[in-house]
């Protein structure tokens, strides 16, 4: 654990708490996490099957 690692968490938390308080959009949202989840799933499928995998294929 490095000081700048904790500092990025603090900034991420601060932006979240401020956005909730002011009723403003947050980021990254769970929807952003869903996209990354689909990319990771595509990576695993690609590694198994040895081909390019469309990200939309994982969301279908």
């Amino acid at each position, binding site marked *: *654990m*490095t000081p*700048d*690692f*904790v*500092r*990025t*968490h*603090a*900034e*991420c*938390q*601060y*932006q*979240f*708490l*401020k*956005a*909730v*308080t002011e009723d403003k*959009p*947050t*980021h*990254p*949202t*769970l*929807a*952003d*996490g*869903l*996209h*990354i*989840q*689909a*990319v*990771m*799933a*595509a*990576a*695993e499928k*690609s*590694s198994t099957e040895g*081909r*390019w*995998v*469309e*990200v*939309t294929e*994982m*969301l279908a």
Partner: protein
Amino acid sequence: MTFPTIGMIGYGGIGRVHGMAYRSLPFHYGLPADTVRIGGVATTRAETAQAAAAELGCGFWTADYRELLARPEIDAVDICVPNHMHAEIAEAAAAAGKHIYCEKPLAMNVAEARRMVDAAARAGVKTQMTFNFRYYPAVLRARQLVDEGLLGRIFSFRGRYYRSSYIDPNKPISWRQQRPIAGGGALFDIGSHILDMLYYACVGEFSAVQATLDTLIKERPAAHWHGRTCHRGCGRHRPAHAAHEGGRAGRGRCLAHGHGADQRHRLRDFRREGRDPRLAVSTRPGWRSTTCATPTSPPAGCAASASSRPSTATPARRRPTGR
């Protein structure tokens, strides 16, 4: 300003990092100490929950997260449990009307992740997750330069995240190497970070992926509490993946056996067949390095002038929201 009261769910390694970071907020942002309120903590065992509450200085602890969700003074939950519990807790939190702050990776798989997104949308609660490396000033600046059109159309990109955290084959297995708990290895643990950094700062949504994943260390000693000599887990992946869309292709790599590396990220764009990067972002050492490398680019820290912006528009892709 009154911030929402936080309930922490999970208090292992990353839970303590979150706790430390919450406690640091008044110092970083000049806030009264009581602006940031942690109203309670839930873990899976009474003794760890009680110890967590003592460390955090909060009055409520429980070994059942549902008891925390039932408390009306809790406005938002911070989910720091291992990955296999994210979906269940997030869905319950949304049903209880709590805002959700969740550790990465979001879930074990796409189906779970989608359920979490849908539950939060139905409940109308706000969500955020800890892709905290977005918030390195160097990464924020890179995103700003891309938004300002400094790079024009990005043809290719590279990102890498190396850590040395599991280079020692004698390091005992943790939940991070066990697929039933973690969902995946280094791809999920640190690959999710570098993918998000590329997604956020440079390229927007990925459209296709080609990857080679490998588990380099297939067996590790059991942690002492398992009472067994050896576990087979999902190990650590060594992925090299590329994603392309709209004429741009690139590569993200993550490695949990990067010798001598602690937290090391790099992002680059390459305009001509892998040469001539215009933008290089490094988060080590410190967090301040964003470099525009071509002579026509303004130096980092200077606003891009209109005349220096390439006229070629980046193809329209959905980009994540953010500053």
